[in-house]
């Protein structure tokens, strides 16, 4: 990515505190936005696609997020563009899904949805269970069927390679919650994948 015009502010933290917009030429602003934020379009779409599990909704959410991001571009001010953008994408996705699943709300246990997965593997030798032969389709399916907060954590951590701290900011929860969500998500995935493996061998 071309870090155009950002070097003088590279020491600033994300999210920024108390910086005023510069109010300089607006086409320069558009150019800076395109240089800094547009390269993260794939990351934005990937998160939206995993959260919404539908390509049309994902495209709508991403477009909405970019519109918001562009309007609120001044709130970035030299911070890390990718987690900043993903925060907005996540909010767009949850707005699309409805108020009921807003940030920070606790996940209710849902027997239908969760019971099949809410069973981390229980034997003493789980290392042996994950086969390298697991194909993409099966892995995608297992991730897709995780409850959304766990799916979100896994996608941000493993596919977008973000730090716990960045994930905590994006998901608007304490770091401890991110860690316990990841741990639980991994248990669910291991369970799902190892059980599938048994099914195939049988």
């Amino acid at each position: 990515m071309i870090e155009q015009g950002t070097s003088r502010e590279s020491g600033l933290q994300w999210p920024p505190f108390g910086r005023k917009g510069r109010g300089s030429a607006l086409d320069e602003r558009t150019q800076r936005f395109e240089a800094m934020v547009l390269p993260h379009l794939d990351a934005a779409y990937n998160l939206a696609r995993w959260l919404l599990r539908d390509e049309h909704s994902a495209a709508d959410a991403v477009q909405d997020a970019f519109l918001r991001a562009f309007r609120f571009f001044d709130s970035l001010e030299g911070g890390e563009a990718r987690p900043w953008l993903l925060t907005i994408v996540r909010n767009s996705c949850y707005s699309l899904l409805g108020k009921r699943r807003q940030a920070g709300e606790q996940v209710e246990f849902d027997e239908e949805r969760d019971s099949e997965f809410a069973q981390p593997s229980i034997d003493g030798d789980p290392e042996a269970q994950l086969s390298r032969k697991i194909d993409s389709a099966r892995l995608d399916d297992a991730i897709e069927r995780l409850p959304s907060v766990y799916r979100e954590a896994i996608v941000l951590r493993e596919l977008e390679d973000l730090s716990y701290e960045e994930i905590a900011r994006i998901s608007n929860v304490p770091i401890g919650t991110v860690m316990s969500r990841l741990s639980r998500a991994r248990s669910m995935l291991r369970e799902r994948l190892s059980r599938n493996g048994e099914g195939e061998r049988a």
Partner: protein
Amino acid sequence: MSERDDELGSLIREKATRHAAPPHLRARVSGMLSQEGIGLAARPPKPAVRQPEPWRRWFNMAGAFAVGMLLSVTVLLVVRGGAEDGRMAQTIVDAHVRSLLGEHLVDVKSSDRHTVKPWFTGKLDYAPPVIDLAPEIPLVGGRLDYLGQRPVSALIYKLNLHTVNVFVWPANGETSKDVTFYARQGFNVAYWVANGMQFWAVSDANVGELRKVTDRLIAATDHH
């Protein structure tokens, strides 16, 4: 992060689909940006760059995050203040705090042990005793937790206004052991072994109150 997590992580990174934005979306976003740029240029520059709403939103978010961090740090300090001999007690306090602060307290919400007990079946490789202490100490529900590399059952009781988490899993060889109490500034932990199961009860209730719970649980398991 364990080796198993590394293994699962690299499997996901290698094989899970990282969805790329379709070309039509890229075109839509670019088109929108140039339109929006013109739209902003047509307006007076001041409102375009100084909107109070996003600022407030960022401040709110930053504030919530700061509070969260402060709580986490406090919890870490509390937990680390303990003595060497109760390392597991720290883990228990950690899990207790996590259940209250972080995610969810109960997976299955029921005061009926005949609902809670079967819920654990198939989720654990042992059958945790689910003991009814109503009406003085009502059962709120059950939860599956993950402690010391294994899934364990957690029963949640209400003792007046205090939440009590009781974790139970098989003991290593021992069949019974008297109660030991650990104090971790603000939290009390009780540990005992009965019928080959180890029990860890934790709460912010004082030792005297927590003892009511442990006495009742021990009396109930003795009758089994």
